[in-house]
């Protein structure tokens, strides 16, 4: 069976030739098997979110190739890659349209990759389906289909964004620190929903996180990044046996003493 995602030696430098030049990706290689759920950790500026953005097509990479399920998407514009991807962002505001209702947001997601014509934007049948899906979240949203998403809490918005990302069963689910802006209790709930959705649809997923406990507890594979490169990659039994202290040691090993200042310490 082929890889679901192949990242081949990608490079990205921002603000090239200026004083703010920043080598964000420095030869990243990563292959994911279908059904893999990889968590990505690393310090600030390690290239975690940058890797996800490279896959999503927020900008084009300088070098290298990105292949999703056999399709080379390296040069595709963002909206065309969306067919293959489900995305949840760090900021709960980013994943949904605030002035549109819950059902309208979900209807937009369920047409990802399809032609958007002059048919009615949402059908009665869909409405029932959305209600059923929202009920599984257990957040009481199933009775608020026509509420504007802007009125909801961050956790509720992330949960809806997760449903939207999973609509159309994407080849790859990209979770970019999607619980970082939530309070611990809500974060735990959204993580549980993420796990459930990934398992239910048997999705291949990547989750960036600053929380090492989460990174160990979720997924079947863990990747650590540093200065635009993957420096550690564990999976299976080895990953299950990991402790936060192992990761901290590993991190200290590669970064010298500087990690003491890093946000990773907080988690």
């Amino acid at each position, binding site marked *: 069976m082929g890889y679901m995602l192949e990242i081949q030696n990608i490079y990205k430098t921002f603000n090239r030739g200026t004083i703010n030049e920043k080598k964000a990706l420095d030869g990243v290689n990563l292959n994911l098997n279908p059904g893999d759920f990889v968590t990505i950790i690393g310090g600030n500026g390690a290239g975690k979110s940058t890797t996800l953005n490279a896959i999503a097509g927020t900008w084009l990479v300088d070098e290298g190739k990105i292949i999703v399920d056999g399709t080379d998407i390296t040069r595709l514009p963002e909206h065309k890659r*969306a067919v293959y991807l489900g995305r949840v962002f760090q900021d709960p*505001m*980013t*994943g*949904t*349209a*605030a002035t549109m209702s819950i059902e309208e947001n979900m209807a*937009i997601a369920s047409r990802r990759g399809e032609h*958007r014509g*002059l048919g009615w934007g949402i059908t009665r049948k869909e409405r029932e389906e959305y209600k059923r899906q929202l009920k599984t979240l257990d957040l009481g949203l199933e009775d608020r289909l026509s509420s504007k998403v802007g009125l909801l809490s961050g956790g509720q918005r992330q949960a809806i964004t997760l449903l939207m990302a999973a609509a159309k069963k994407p080849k790859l689910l990209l979770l970019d620190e999607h619980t970082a802006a939530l309070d611990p209790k809500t974060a735990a709930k959204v993580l549980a929903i993420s796990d459930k959705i990934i398992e239910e649809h048997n999705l291949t997923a990547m989750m960036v996180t600053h929380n090492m406990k989460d990174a160990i507890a979720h997924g079947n594979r863990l990747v650590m990044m540093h200065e635009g490169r993957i420096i550690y990659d564990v999976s299976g039994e080895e990953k299950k046996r990991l402790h936060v202290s192992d990761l901290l040691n590993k991190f200290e090993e590669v970064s010298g003493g500087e990690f003491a200042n890093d946000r990773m310490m907080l988690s």
Partner: protein
Amino acid sequence: MVLDYFMSLDPMALLRAMPGTAAQGLIWGIMALGVYITYRILDFPDLTVDGSLATGAATAVMLIQGGMHPALSLVFALLAGMAAGFVTGILHTALGIPGILASILTQVSLYSVNLVIMGKSNQGISLTQQGLVASSRYVTADDSVFFFLKLILACLVLVAVVYWFFGTEMGASIRATGCNPQMARAQGINTDYAKVLALMISNGLVGLCGGVLAQYQGAADVNMGRGAIVIGLAAVIISEVIFGKLCAGRKIAFAYTLAAVFVGAILYYVAYALVLWFKMPSDYMKLFSALVVALFLAVPYLKEQRALKRRS
């Protein structure tokens, strides 16, 4: 002196001016509907309208002079407006020019285009022209009631069409683009395409308004769109301030909002008529319009600032 001034004001004159005022408000409401689409739905400050209004007017008048039926000429006024919107859209999306600047470039170039269409700075419609869709003559005619009924019906049809369109998949993709472009792209929406489309629809309505307005006034003038954006914004904002709370939370709130834009346009023209009735020099009208818009835009902002200050 003051007494003389008030004695010289004739309430009947104001009353007599009202039908014409209402008709103008309804017609300008078509443009305000277009402005609503860019300003509110797409979140794009589109100044193309100052040019595309006259483009629609010029197109309609020249075609009528050439013998086309006035009603049919409006189709071409609409298309001319859409073409103007297309140019702004391409300047912005394909050529990466900031939105407001792209629209100014189109607006400026349209001045020349409009002169070319008309061959001179204004062109009239013959007084004996039959079949005009709207005319100030109809307002004073005996059967003016029918004219108003037709005009209101036409405006309601436009509201219905716009309401329907923004409920479709395509319309929803434009709304998502305006609200959150990043989300739209993540959901596979081509936001460039959505922006161009919205600009075309908006300016199509503006061109249509220009065509109707030219027929109403009996002439097209290269300067007739100057400051149109301010009138459009005024109508949108007045309708929001007055009807915002009324419309909120209703099942088809969006349809009410769109219809309220026409009421906003009428109210703007009522205020306009009042100012004229008070014998203010008409030279000050643009200043007055700009002040109205500035005021209505500033009040919600200042209210919020004060509320924030009180909280802290």
